[in-house]
């Protein structure tokens, strides 16, 4: 086994807000010495000391939450941006696919875009010509080859774009989340094409939020959180660990009294956390398991009816639903002074896969309605559908639309 990719202590710092130079002279002097020297203040460690190796023919999955550093890592390995420190070595041709259809031009026809996009992806003209018919057939756009792509449906556009990329023949293929597009049948085709590529002995780095795709395509995986590698090993182990841990998720939030705690004269929020069914803090959940949202708050004056209220949003900021304490025990029962812990249980098999945010409010309805506070996006959590066959997904492996994914009862009877 030869090592095809060797990454050593890779770090990347982003400076937010940009440099503030005092004068044009400073800018010029600073430029000659070191361009863009930035203030030490607003820096973001996108990657910290990341090291790993990939052998020839391996398919490495990279998992992690949004902002964990996956895209930065791929950008560095694709040479789009430079690391702040550390080195990496890649052996052989590198093809990177961070986006499907990079450089497509709407005014150009499908045929023209095949050549343009192929060149952008690093294919020689002879290589494109050799694969041309196959690309067209794979994308199923024969009839529209000479139509400007601006008249394509989004499905056709994506099919063409992926088809070109799928015919890249590098030794190392870097793929970011590109399977999250296109229609279902085509996605299956893409996944199997990816598998063909990996079985033909090429090395693949594959980033996805789709854990089932990771486990099916990759043999090894690493997990990133806050720019650091927090898990590495076989793809199934890493995915299992990822789903059961809360790497980098703000699944738990504490508030400091008098500083940032949401409060009124009657009640103050102290802590909110997302738990698994056993009550342990957990930010990544299996779609089948129930999820607890737990709020700890202190009642400052006795005698008010105080009801916790949680609003659940998905990543697209769609308000999915609101839940509040309607239990007979507390619905109309004033609370005495003291500390309370309330937990709402969201049943398993309810929401679709993705990331979710929780707003936490405290309300009184009787005798008059009063919102004591409403803290926005206090905690977040992820739900993953792990393709076990016993979820609403069944045996289907592609992208499933819809914000909810309830597991419902079915009745089918045989008529004649």
């Amino acid at each position, binding site marked *: 086994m030869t090592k095809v990719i060797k990454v050593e202590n890779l770090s990347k710092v982003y400076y937010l807000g940009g440099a503030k130079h005092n004068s044009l002279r400073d800018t010029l002097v600073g430029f000659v010495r070191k361009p863009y020297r930035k203030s030490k203040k607003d820096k973001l460690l996108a990657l910290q000391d990341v090291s790993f190796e990939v052998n020839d023919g391996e398919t490495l999955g990279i998992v992690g939450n949004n902002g964990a550093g996956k895209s930065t890592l791929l950008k560095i390995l694709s040479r789009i941006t430079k690391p702040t420190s550390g080195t990496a070595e890649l052996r052989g041709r590198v093809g990177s696919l961070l986006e499907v259809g*990079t450089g497509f031009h709407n005014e150009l026809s499908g045929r023209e875009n095949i050549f343009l996009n192929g060149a952008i992806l690093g294919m020689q003209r002879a290589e494109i010509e050799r694969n041309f018919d196959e690309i067209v057939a794979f994308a199923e756009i024969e009839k529209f080859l000479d139509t400007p792509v601006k008249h394509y449906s989004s499905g056709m556009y994506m099919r063409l774009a992926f088809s070109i990329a799928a015919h890249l023949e590098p030794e190392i293929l870097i793929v970011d989340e590109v399977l999250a597009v296109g229609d279902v049948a085509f996605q299956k085709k893409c996944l199997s094409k990816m598998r063909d590529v990996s079985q033909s002995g090429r090395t693949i780095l594959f980033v996805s939020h789709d854990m089932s795709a990771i486990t099916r395509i990759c043999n090894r995986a690493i997990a990133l959180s806050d720019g650091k590698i927090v898990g590495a090993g076989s793809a199934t182990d890493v995915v299992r660990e990822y789903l059961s841990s809360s790497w980098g998720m703000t699944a738990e939030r504490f508030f400091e009294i008098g500083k940032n705690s949401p409060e009124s004269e009657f009640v103050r929020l102290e802590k909110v956390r997302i738990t698994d069914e056993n009550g342990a803090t957990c930010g990544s959940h299996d779609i089948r398991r129930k999820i607890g949202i737990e709020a700890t708050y202190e009642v400052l004056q006795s005698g008010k009816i105080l009801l916790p209220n949680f609003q659940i949003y998905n990543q697209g900021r769609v308000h999915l639903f609101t839940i509040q304490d309607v239990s007979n025990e507390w619905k109309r029962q004033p609370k005495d002074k003291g500390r309370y812990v309330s937990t709402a249980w969201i049943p398993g098999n309810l929401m679709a896969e993705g990331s979710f945010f929780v707003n936490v409010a405290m309300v009184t309805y009787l005798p008059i309605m009063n919102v004591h506070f409403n803290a926005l996006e206090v905690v977040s959590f992820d739900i993953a559908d792990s393709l076990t066959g016993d979820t609403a997904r069944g045996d289907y492996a592609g992208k499933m639309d819809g914000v909810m994914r309830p597991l419902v009862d079915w009745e089918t009877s045989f008529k004649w």
Partner: protein
Amino acid sequence: MSINQPSAAGNSPRPDEITKIEPAKWRNVFAWREFWSYRELLYFLTWRDVKVRYRQTAIGVLWAILQPVLTTAIFTIIFSRFARFESLQISYPLFALSGLLIWLYVNNSVTLASNSLVGNTNLVTKIYFPRLIVPTAATFSGLIDLALSFVILVGLMIYYGVNLTFQILLAPLFVVLAILLAISFGTLFSALNVRFRDVKFALPFFLQIWMFLSPIFYPSDILPEKWRVAFALNPLTGILQGFRASMFGGSFDWFSIGAAVVLTFALAGVSFFVFKRMEDDFADLI
């Protein structure tokens, strides 16, 4: 290495070649070899810019001809009616068109190139390639227009019965110099534009002033002798002088031509230095 033997052709390193990724460092040499290995991308980006420019226009590529022809007509009306340049050896439309053809190429190329990186954000942030390809392609895409207006110029020369001399063989050298000048300013402004979007607003003024300071629609000998040296600091002075002399068979002003060569190469050096210096941060800044 693999079952489906990957084709040997490709832009990226050969299968046995190693790509080393390191923190940004000042390297003295420009990676010409890498730039050369990406020549097909340069070709396709140029081709794209040419194809797209006149899409969905009613008269298409005719615009490339109309721009210099109409401007020449306007200048001819103004300068043959109201202000005559007595020193001209050739008829004014020839003089104006020959100047405009070079100027419009430089003007349009610098404008297109300066917006090229920002206009191709999706490429710069998603794919690796030598960034210099982008402004260079923008500059090359104007060559079609230049060639078309050159045809018009030749037609006009036949119409006016200009005698061709062997000097015309030198004309391409001055065109190449103009191209290098356009690439230099184009790359410089494209890099600065990534960081300072002020370029977008300042550039039109710069180009306008430059146009008036260049002997495009007036001959440089209308200026007093003492100003000639200062005028030669504008590389376009020498380029235009040399281009016209080789096309119409006049005498060469070697002082301004020499100055143009030195200045253009110096500018190219500065521009590539600045570009190279800023290149590594394009994807993070754009």
